[in-house]
């Protein structure tokens, strides 16, 4: 994975956590993973299409998600209901959108997909042949785990509609 794709996401996440949630995040230890990620209790998945392609996952515990959404929406949430899910999905959307702007400024135009949310621990999430850079952001509300599986696209058109089954 190209490391220059990392900082836009970290900077965007810091900015959004600060502006929307009012917490200061600290970056934990980076790691590069080749195997599948084990889903957190709550995972937001957003794809990138364009000069940078791939997928970004935001993983957090339900307790952390509830605390974050309580801060974003300014009311306490005890249950991870639809509104709470929307709030967390939107946080992923805003972080990714801002990171996309930063990538565009660096010369990599990309569009982001709508967020998809996965709730339920233990499922394996595989980015197939994309390596995944895992970045924990630690906050007073808990850890937001960012997984970046991104690469530069040589071709902006429909990505790799290649022959089937060739690994």
């Amino acid at each position, binding site marked *: 994975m190209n490391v220059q794709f990392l900082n836009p996401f970290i900077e965007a996440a810091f900015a959004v956590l600060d502006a929307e949630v009012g917490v200061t995040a600290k970056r934990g230890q980076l790691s590069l993973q080749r195997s599948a990620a084990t889903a957190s209790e709550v995972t937001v998945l957003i794809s990138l299409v364009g000069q940078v392609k791939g997928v970004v996952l935001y993983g957090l515990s339900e307790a952390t998600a509830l605390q974050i959404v309580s801060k974003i929406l300014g009311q306490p949430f005890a249950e991870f209901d639809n509104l709470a899910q929307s709030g967390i999905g939107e946080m992923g959307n805003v972080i990714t959108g801002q990171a996309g702007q930063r990538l565009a400024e660096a010369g990599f135009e990309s*569009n982001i997909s709508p967020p998809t949310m996965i709730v339920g621990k233990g499922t394996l999430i595989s980015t197939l042949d994309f390596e995944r850079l895992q970045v924990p952001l630690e906050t007073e509300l808990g850890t937001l785990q960012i997984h970046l599986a991104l690469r530069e696209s040589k071709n902006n058109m429909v990505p790799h509609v290649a022959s089937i089954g060739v690994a």
Partner: protein
Amino acid sequence: MRVEFFNPFIVAAGEVLNSELGARAKRGRLTLDKADYISQDITVLISLVGDVWGVVIISLQFDTAKTIVSHLLGEAVTDFNELAQSGIGELGNVISGRAATKLAEAGYDTDISVPTMMVGQGSRISTFDIDRLIVPLETEFGVISLALALREAQNNSTQRPFEVKQPPTIN
């Protein structure tokens, strides 16, 4: 609900299953699903970005996936290993890519994302405010289920379920 967005996927899936696997897919009963989607053994997620916007979820059971990959690779696959995952991901990719070509021919330019794969049943998948059309495709290998959560892109800043402050996409 825009029927013209869904048919390309149903047709593309039928064509790909036929050309790659020699399978004849029979469309089961369509249902519209607003609640969370519960994952089956294997789930492939592919997002669409462009004039059509959303996500395509392809689900199947382990046994179905293993039979399909065995056919694709021409050797018996007993374990759903990385090679098998890659085969199923690629199948999703080819179906979506072909559907995107059909959408483009109909005047909707849309890019597809790379596939992401989930392994393990019982997780809930939410597509937020985008309803899903569930299309079961019955084949001799088992059922392949398509969940299509698609809509036409509007002004990108108005299609969020909940707004914070920043526009969601950058152009």
